[in-house]
C-alpha cells in the first residue's frame, strides 16, 4: 500500500473541523506527506461532518473514496459511511445499537465511560480519538501534545492531553505499513488553498481587501482580517458584495493594491463592478472560490462551474485575465502575479479556486521563492510645474496600456468614468473615440498572452488517454498518475488570454478527454470556441464532490 487514508466523522458542532486538520499536521510533523479533505453541510449543529486524510511517505495530492481507518465519534457516522470489512473503525461500540452487525476491524474505545470516569466534557471526545489514532499509526505522542498546546487555551491543554492518553491506552496495535517517514517533510507547510491565496496576496503587498463573507471564500477574509493590523492592510467586511467590489475599486483607483474575493453568488452581485473596473482600467484582483449552484445551491460543496460565467461576466466585452491554479504553489504564485498583471495591464484578474482547493489541506515544501518581484506598471510621477493640469490618463502609452495616476499627483488630474470617454476621461461617444478605445483596450491581450502559462502536460507523453483539466482537478489526476501509465493530462493553470495556436500544438495527436467537475464541460466549451477543436469525450462529475482517485482509475481502466 502506498497511501493510507484516515477519516474522522461526527455531527456538526463536535469539533471535527479542528481535530481533522490537527491530525493532518501531526502526520506531517511525523514525516508524512498529507492531504486533508473536509465535508460538512451548511448547518451549525446537527448535520454530518467528516474530515478525510490521505497520507504517505511519498507526496500525496488528493482524496480517495477509500477509507482505511475510520474514527466514528458518534453513531451518525454509521448512517453516513459505507463500512467495509477491511476498514479499521475506532468507535465506542458499546453505545452503538446493533454494533454486532457491523463487519470491520473494530477498535473499541469506551469513550462514554472515559468521559464519565474522568469528568471530561463532551468536547474532548476528539482528543481521545486523536490519541487512539496516533497510537494506531505510530505517531509520537509528543507531537500530538505539542499541537494541543499550540491550539487550545492553556487551561484545557492538560485535560486534552489526559484524554488523548486514555485513547492511546485502548489502541496498542500499530497499523502495518512500510512507510519510512521523511525528515524533510517534517519542515513542510500544511495549508489550505485559501491560505495560499491570502499569503500570496500579503507577499504581493496587498493594501485593501473588501468583501462580504461567503463560503467557501470566507476564510480568505478571515485570514487577512486576522493579520490586517500586523501587515498594515485594511480589510473590510462590507454591507454586501456590491460594496465589497466597489470599495476595492475605489482603493485601487487611489493607488493601493486591492482585492476582493467571493463565491459565485457574491460574484453575481459584483457583476456590474467588474465592468466598471475594466472601463476605468483600474487594477483589480478577484479571488473566486466556486461552489455548486445555481443560486444558493450547495454552499459547502465543490464544483468547477463558474469558468464560463467569469469569461463572459458583465455587459459588453473587455479583457479579463482568468487564472486557474491547481495546487498550493500555483495558488500562491499566481495570486502574487495576479497583482502584477492587474497593475501592468489595468484589467480585472480572476484567481479561480473551488471549495475542494480552498478548504482542503495540502502539503507543500515551501512558498518563499527568489524571483518574486513587484511590478506596478506605468505610473505617472507628476509634474509640479503645472499641478492643476489634466493628464491624458487614457492615452496609449505602450502595448495598449496607458499610464495610471494616483489622485494627489500634481498635473495628473483626470476623470475615471464608467462611461466611454476621451483621453482625459471626459464622456465621449463619437464613433472614432469609441473605436480607438475598444481597439486599444483589447490590444493588451496580445501582450498578456505572452506572460500567461500555457497548459502543461503531466505524465508519460505517449499515454493512451490525455485528460484535459483546469484548476483543482490537477490534484486527483496527479494522485492517479501514480498508479497507471495509461493516461497523461494537460492542465490549464490559466485560461484567458492565452495563445490558442500553441494550445493546438500541445493537443496534436492526443486522444483528448475533458475532465471537469461541472455538468457541461466548460473548459471543453472554451477550447471549442477558441480553437474549433471539439472534445467529444468528457468525464464530468457534478455532485458537489471532487473526483476521487479511484473514479479516475476506474475510468481509465474501462478505457473511457
Amino acid at each position, binding site marked *: 500500500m502506498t497511501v493510507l487514508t484516515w477519516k474522522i466523522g461526527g455531527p456538526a458542532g463536535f469539533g471535527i473541523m479542528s481535530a481533522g486538520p490537527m491530525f493532518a499536521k501531526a502526520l506531517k*510533523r511525523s514525516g508524512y506527506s498529507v492531504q486533508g479533505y473536509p465535508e460538512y453541510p451548511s448547518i451549525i449543529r446537527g448535520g454530518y461532518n467528516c474530515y478525510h486524510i490521505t497520507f504517505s511517505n511519498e507526496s500525496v495530492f488528493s482524496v480517495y473514496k477509500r477509507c482505511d481507518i475510520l474514527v466514528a465519534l458518534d453513531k451518525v457516522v454509521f448512517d453516513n459511511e459505507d463500512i467495509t470489512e477491511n476498514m479499521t473503525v475506532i468507535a465506542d461500540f458499546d453505545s452503538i445499537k446493533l454494533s454486532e452487525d457491523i463487519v470491520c476491524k473494530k477498535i473499541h474505545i469506551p469513550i462514554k465511560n472515559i468521559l464519565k470516569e474522568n469528568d471530561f466534557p463532551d468536547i474532548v471526545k476528539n482528543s481521545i480519538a486523536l490519541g487512539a489514532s496516533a497510537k494506531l499509526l505510530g505517531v509520537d505522542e509528543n507531537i500530538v501534545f505539542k499541537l494541543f498546546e499550540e491550539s487550545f487555551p492553556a487551561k484545557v491543554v492538560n485535560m486534552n492531553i489526559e484524554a488523548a492518553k486514555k485513547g492511546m491506552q485502548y489502541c496498542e496495535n500499530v497499523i502495518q505499513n512500510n512507510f519510512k517517514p521523511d525528515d524533510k517533510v517534517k*519542515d*513542510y*507547510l*500544511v*495549508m489550505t488553498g485559501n491560505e495560499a491565496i491570502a*499569503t500570496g496576496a*500579503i*507577499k*504581493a*503587498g496587498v*493594501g*485593501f481587501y473588501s468583501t462580504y463573507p461567503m463560503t467557501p471564500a470566507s476564510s480568505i477574509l478571515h485570514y487577512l482580517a486576522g493579520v*490586517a*493590523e500586523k*501587515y*498594515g*492592510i*485594511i480589510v*473590510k467586511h*462590507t*454591507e*454586501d458584495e*456590491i460594496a465589497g467590489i*466597489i*470599495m476595492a*475599486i*475605489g*482603493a*485601487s*483607483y*487611489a*493607488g*493601493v*493594491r*486591492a482585492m476582493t474575493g467571493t463565491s459565485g453568488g457574491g460574484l453575481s452581485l459584483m457583476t*456590474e*463592478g467588474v465592468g*466598471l473596473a475594466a472601463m*476605468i482600467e483600474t487594477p483589480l484582483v478577484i479571488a473566486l472560490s466556486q461552489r455548486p449552484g445555481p443560486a444558493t445551491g450547495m454552499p459547502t460543496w465543490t464544483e468547477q462551474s463558474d469558468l464560463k460565467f467569469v469569461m463572459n461576466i458583465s455587459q459588453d466585452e473587455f479583457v479579463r485575465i482568468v487564472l486557474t491554479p491547481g495546487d498550493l504553489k500555483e495558488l500562491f504564485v499566481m495570486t502574487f502575479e495576479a497583482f502584477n498583471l492587474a497593475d501592468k495591464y489595468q484589467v480585472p484578474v480572476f484567481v479561480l479556486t473551488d471549495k475542494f482547493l480552498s478548504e482542503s489541506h495540502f502539503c507543500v515544501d*515551501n*512558498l*518563499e521563492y527568489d524571483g518574486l518581484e*513587484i511590478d506596478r506598471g506605468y505610473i505617472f510621477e507628476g509634474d509640479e510645474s503645472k499641478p*492643476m493640469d*489634466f493628464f491624458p490618463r487614457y492615452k496609449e502609452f505602450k502595448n495598449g496600456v496607458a499610464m495610471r495616476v494616483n*489622485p*494627489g499627483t*500634481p*498635473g*495628473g*488630474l*483626470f*476623470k*475615471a*468614468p464608467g*462611461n466611454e470617454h476621451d483621453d482625459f*476621461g*471626459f*464622456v465621449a461617444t463619437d464613433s472614432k473615440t469609441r473605436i480607438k478605445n475598444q481597439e486599444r483596450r483589447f490590444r493588451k491581450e496580445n501582450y498578456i498572452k505572452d506572460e500567461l502559462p500555457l497548459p502543461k502536460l503531466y505524465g508519460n507523453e505517449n499515454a493512451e488517454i490525455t485528460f484535459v483539466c483546469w484548476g483543482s482537478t490537477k490534484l486527483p489526476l496527479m494522485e492517479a498518475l501514480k498508479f497507471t501509465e495509461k493516461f497523461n493530462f494537460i492542465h490549464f493553470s490559466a485560461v484567458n488570454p492565452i495563445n490558442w495556436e500553441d494550445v493546438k500544438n500541445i493537443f496534436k495527436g492526443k486522444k483528448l478527454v475533458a475532465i471537469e467537475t461541472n455538468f457541461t464541460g466548460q473548459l471543453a466549451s472554451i477550447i471549442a470556441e477558441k480553437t474549433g477543436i471539439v472534445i467529444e469525450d468528457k468525464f464530468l462529475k457534478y455532485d458537489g464532490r471532487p473526483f476521487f482517485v479511484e473514479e479516475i482509475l476506474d475510468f481509465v481502466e474501462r478505457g473511457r
Partner: protein
Amino acid sequence: MKAMEFNSGKIPVWCPGCGNFAIWNAIKGALADLELNGKDVVNVSGIGCSGKMLNHLRTYGFHTLHGRTLPVATGVKLSNHKLTVIVNGGDGDGYGMGAGHFIHAIRRNLDITYLVHDNHIYGLTTGQASPTTDKGLKSKSTPSGVIDEPLNPLAVALNAGAAFVARGYSGEVEHLKELIKEGINFKGFAYIDILQPCVTFGKKYSYEYYDERIYKLDESYDCTSFENALKKVWEKDKIALGIIYKIQKDEYTSLHPQIKEKTLLETTGKIRDISEELQSFK
C-alpha cells in the same frame, strides 16, 4: 486657487435654470475658500444629471456606477486619507439604488462630504419618480400617480446615526457654499441634502415653492441636540436650511491603526517578508 480656476473648461449641459449650476458654483467657491488644491480633491459622482458635476470640476474625479458613489468614496478615502473626498449624487442614485450604502456609510462616519442633489425626480432618464417624489405625482413610470410614501432621507440619516446632517438649497448659493465648507471641515461623514429644482421635470419643487418655505437656522438653534434635529427634519410647511445636526464622533480613519501615520498608499504595495507567517503552517 480662485473659484473660477476650479472650472474644468467643459461647458455644462444642464438645462438653463437647473439647480445644478448653483451647486457647481457653491462647490467651487467652497474649495477656493478652503484654499484647497484641485489635485488633492477627489470628486466622486453618481449617474444622473447630478453626476455630471464631475465633468465640470478641475479636480480628480470618479464617475461611478449608478448608486455606487459611497463605496467608491470609502475605498478612496481609506487608501489615501490625505485627499479631500467630495461625493455628488442624485436622489434616485443615493436614496433608491444606493439606500443600503447610505445607511452603512453613515455607520462608518468616514471623513467625506456627501452632497445629494435632491430634485425629487429622476432627471437624466426623463422624469421618473424618485424615492423623494410625492405621492400622487404622475411620471412616466407612475402614470396614475406615485403610491409609495416619499422618503424623509434626513430623518433616516439621523436615526441611522449620522453625525452631520444639513440641508442646503440651490437658490441660496452663498449659504450652500458655507455648508459645504462646514461639511468638508467636519471630521466625519458630512451629509448635505440639497434642494435642487429640476426646471424640466420637477413640477412642484420649483424655486418659487422653496422660496416661500425656506428659512435659515441661526445661532439660536442648537444643532447638537438630537431632539431639535428630529423636530427640524419632520417639520411640515416650513423648510429649515443649515446644519440640522452636528456632533463629534469617532472618525473612521482614526480607528485604523494601519493608517495612523502614513497613508495606505504609502505603506503598502511593496513586497513583504512572510516567513513568520509561513512558519505557522509547519
